[in-house]
């Protein structure tokens, strides 16, 4: 829509006011994390810390297994992303491009998993992990998340949109199905795979309820539940809490700023196609 100059200024003012509310918590979190305890609880408020005080950061690393939690989060995220890319692209390719008996019935099964609210699986999943003797292990953090109905659906849509001639050319060139998949189709599905990587990385990094349930030891959990523990342990220590919050959002925020176009377009596309 075309606006005249005065209209544009009004639009900027409204958007900037909204932006203050959106961004303020991030700035406040960052500023508080560098304050001393006295500065943090000062009335009237102290906006900027006098010095960059690292007390909050050193405390969470010395008094909590924060480094271990950080490594757990990284491991869990990487394993989940890699497994989902491999498993979902293979299955997505088969559902999108191959013919086999029972295909529609099996695919319907995947769609139904997609439609059920995730919490309904939790109690049995917990019991399975328990029977496998995996409670309180790193593997428990990601095991059910390796298999994604959403990712399979996403990549199936993507594989379906590729032209059929490519496959025929590959067959003429003497590729078998595995070669056609690996050498021709997979590279072409890259934009779809990038979307899946981003969605999965955001999900795995920020996961909360599942790790909260399966892993009760602090050194076996990931950042979300660890923040909850941090909050319980240092009820009145806001510099430590904010330092933990800053560290837990930084990697995903950096990733977001690098890939913001893919992040946003992935979401936008999901909306249009939905």
């Amino acid at each position, binding site marked *: 829509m075309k606006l005249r100059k005065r209209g544009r200024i009004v639009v900027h003012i409204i958007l900037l006011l909204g932006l203050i509310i959106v961004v303020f918590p991030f700035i406040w979190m960052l500023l508080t994390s560098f304050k001393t305890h006295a500065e943090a609880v000062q009335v009237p408020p102290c906006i900027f810390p006098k010095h960059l005080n690292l007390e909050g950061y050193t405390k969470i690393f010395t008094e909590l297994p924060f480094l271990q939690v950080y490594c757990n989060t990284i491991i869990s995220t990487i394993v989940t992303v890699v497994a989902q890319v491999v498993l979902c692209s293979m299955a997505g390719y088969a559902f999108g491009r191959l013919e086999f008996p029972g295909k529609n019935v099996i695919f319907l099964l995947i769609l139904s998993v997609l439609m059920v609210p995730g919490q309904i699986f939790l109690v049995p999943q917990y019991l399975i992990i328990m029977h496998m003797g995996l409670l309180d292990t790193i593997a428990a953090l990601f095991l059910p998340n390796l298999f994604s109905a959403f990712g399979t659906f996403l990549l199936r849509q993507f594989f379906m949109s590729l032209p059929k001639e490519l496959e025929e050319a590959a067959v003429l060139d003497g590729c078998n199905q595995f070669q056609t998949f690996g050498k021709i189709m997979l590279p072409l599905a890259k934009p779809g795979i990038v979307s899946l990587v981003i969605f999965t990385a955001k999900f795995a990094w920020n996961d*909360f309820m599942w790790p909260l349930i399966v892993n009760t030891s602090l050194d076996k959990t990931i950042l979300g539940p660890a923040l909850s523990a941090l909050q319980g342990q240092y009820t009145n220590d806001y510099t430590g809490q904010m330092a933990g919050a800053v560290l837990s959002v930084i990697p995903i925020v950096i990733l977001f700023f690098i890939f913001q176009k893919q992040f946003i377009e992935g979401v936008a596309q999901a909306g249009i196609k939905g």
Partner: protein
Amino acid sequence: MSIPNGQAQGLVRQKNKAKYRGWLCAYLFIAPLMIGLIVFYIIPFIQSVLYSFTDIDSFNNATFIGMANYQKMFTDPDMWRSLGNTLLWVVITVPIGILLSLIVAALLNTNIKGKSAYRTLYFLPVVTMPAAIAMVWKWIFNGQFGILNQFLALFGIPAHNWITDPKYAFWMVMIVGIWSAMGYNMVILLAGMQGISGSYYEVASIEGANPFQQFFKVTLPLLTPTLFFVLLTSIISGFQVFDIIYMMIGKGSPAYESTQTILMLYYRNAFDYSNKGYASAVAVFLFLIILVITAVQMKLQKKWVNYD
């Protein structure tokens, strides 16, 4: 000329062999995923439904007790309060959240500069960890040292314990819920708006429609399919709110009851009280609510959604 019988059979056999090999290959492609989905999702779904008719003791032995969990659920004041809170959450946060994201999307759909910078920053809360977000807002709302009270004091508004006082707590958590979901809907709505052909606006402006009229007469009607999608997904995720409330309202908080949603009730029963049978009934009930609401919306959409 006809192909000798034996050779034709050979060809058919060869063709069949290739076909079976193709099938086998397809099954190999889907097998790893399907095994995982069956073990961790499909069987657990059936188990949850079965568990909801049982009593599970602390050693996880289940005894069949028929409809008792459901009977208990419908007479449990805790359940009704949680359901009421969840409905309140959905009824308040979904319309306000969609309205705000619609306004921001409409403003970003104009010919102003810096659109992609705005879009990126408004999306920031969507990617950040709900647990961290909840912690920061809790600190902002803190009754003693929180910046909100200090800011309000400038206008002579007295300090409140925003998140420990049951009167305010749920409303404050709702503000955070709206804040964190807004960017997501904004991006989807904006994409929908950008899919509307510019020629509609040209015609509208030739006919003398001002930007407001253009928005209500052109944008809004053509945006209804996107609005429908946003409404559907927002309601579904509204029923599943958990992280923010769990983080902001601690176990011992005086506001615990007034902020307990269905999923909090489920979590408490399944993992704090070891009431896994009852919790499964709650999960099945939540599933049925979502199913019914989705079905009703699918029916109602014919009345207000335009597909051209």
